[in-house]
């Protein structure tokens, strides 16, 4: 699905003393199958922007087009497109309510009007995608699971909708490092398998580095940078200027450079960082 954001403005609590402009004329285009990271400091408008893309909010000005149709419109065409956008909020497990894992994951597909066999097949597939054995987990009570398992069930519920666009808002918040790495690897495998559009909202820039090809930076409700991942995340000064901390590898390479090392400073993944340091030593 083609996503086009045109001059989008959003204002919270309009006309009250608490009025706050969250987005100020954002323009953005995302092609089908793109892997895009959206980052920015707290309050920069990241979550508001993706809620607009999912058609959950009404713009104060401007619009979001999903394959040419306004995302928030009350028309069957708009509704059909919104169904193709899966959005996982922060702590998505907080919105679970069903009595078994199976019913929780099946909730979305059931509302798509699929038959029982298709629903069961999708639930199995989605649970496997997030690394939960369907036979062991289908009958369990969601609330008796660990935090990491609950997160996986919530994500499976969204994958089971087979969305063309998957939007994840801080999907690893609160998980331990191993759980974090595992979930991200699985989401990446899912993206590669389905070719869906993948939008990752996060302020963990080191996590984002290996997952997306393009990064959009927001600050104070505006797009301040948009480009290839290395170009955006490898530019420590720009990240700091909008109140973000560069990935730790960039910080390390910058410090080496300041100490006189002839290193590039835009290496993002650890293998690349090691090679860059070794290259200088072996010169």
């Amino acid at each position: 699905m083609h996503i086009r954001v045109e001059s989008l403005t959003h204002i919270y609590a309009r006309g009250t003393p608490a009025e706050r402009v969250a987005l100020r004329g954002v323009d953005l285009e995302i092609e089908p199958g793109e892997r895009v990271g959206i980052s920015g400091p707290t309050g920069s408008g990241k979550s508001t922007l993706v809620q607009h893309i999912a058609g959950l909010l009404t713009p104060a000005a401007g619009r979001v087009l999903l394959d040419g149709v306004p995302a928030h419109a009350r028309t069957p065409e708009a509704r059909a497109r919104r169904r193709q956008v899966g959005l996982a909020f922060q702590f998505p497990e907080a919105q679970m309510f069903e009595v078994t894992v199976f019913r929780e994951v099946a909730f979305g597909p059931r509302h798509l009007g699929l038959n029982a066999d298709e629903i069961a097949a999708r639930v199995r597939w989605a649970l496997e995608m997030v690394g939960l054995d369907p036979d062991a987990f289908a009958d369990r009570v969601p609330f008796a699971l660990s935090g990491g398992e609950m997160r996986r069930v919530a994500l499976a519920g969204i994958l089971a909708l087979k969305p063309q666009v998957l939007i994840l808002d801080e999907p690893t918040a609160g998980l331990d490092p191993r759980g974090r790495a595992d979930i991200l690897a699985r989401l990446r495998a899912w993206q590669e398998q389905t070719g869906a559009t993948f939008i990752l909202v996060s302020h963990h820039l080191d996590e984002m580095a290996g997952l997306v090809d393009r990064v959009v930076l927001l600050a104070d409700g505006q797009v301040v940078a948009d480009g290839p991942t290395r170009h955006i995340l490898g530019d420590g000064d720009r990240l700091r200027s909008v109140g973000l901390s560069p990935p730790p590898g960039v910080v390390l390479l910058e410090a080496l450079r300041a100490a006189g090392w002839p290193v590039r400073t835009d290496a993002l993944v650890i293998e690349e960082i090691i090679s860059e340091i070794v290259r200088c030593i072996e010169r």
Partner: protein
Amino acid sequence: MPTPFIQTRALEYTYFAEDGRAIPALRGIDLTVGRGEFVALVGPNGSGKSTLARHFNALLLPTAGEVWVDGLSTADPRQVQAIRQRVGMVFQNPDNQLVAGTVEEDVAFGPENLGVPPAEIRRRVDEALEVVGMTAYRHHPPHMLSGGQKQRVAIAGALATRPHCIIFDEPTSMLDAEGRRQVLQTVRQLNAELGLTVILITQSMDEAALARRVLVMDGGQIVRDGPPEEVLEDPEVEKLGLGQPFAAEVARRLRERGVPLPSGLLTVEALVAALTETHRSYAVGLPG
């Protein structure tokens, strides 16, 4: 050895799941935390970190064994208020901890509940806001603040009850990088300048490296206890999947590639200094 502040003996805590299964969350914890220590508590999800910390201010009581705080037993109902006054807690999500309409009312909430006289409350609120650097925001509504600012207000609220110890339960996990920096700086300052006992529960080994002692939990037990330089590079700890401080991981991989580096390089500054030393010796042709 500093005076003991928190002590547990054979502490066990078991709860029952919905299906009736008994879940042993803590399995025999013997621990002493001295007054003024800065301790990081790490471990995988479900290892018992938060459950243990909740015993330190009598939010939970042991199924077996004992817990003393400043010599007071948490099992004695008459001491619970005194214990809670000594041990404050700051949680993950600042939005769940802020209750009042303005920042200073929020900070005053704790001492008001303790029946502190108004003039004293005024003094404590002013001091606490000063310590966390939020005096300029005293009349702001908390929901208008950034995540890092909210968390600092929550810390001021804990400080206003004049605790000897503050437990931070993943205080930065919902914050952006700037918020994390602000909160960690405040945490260090409370320990270094005010001498508070600090217990920091965290998933970040870079944050754990800030402490002077690291406790590693797994399966309801403390499996490792020592200074960060010893604990955070321990291969047994690595097996728990907690990761390593970023600099330590880079150093390990460089050692594997034949670059001579000492162990215990837990920060970027330490790593850069060590590498630059090595590199200079390469440059002047000294043995590496």
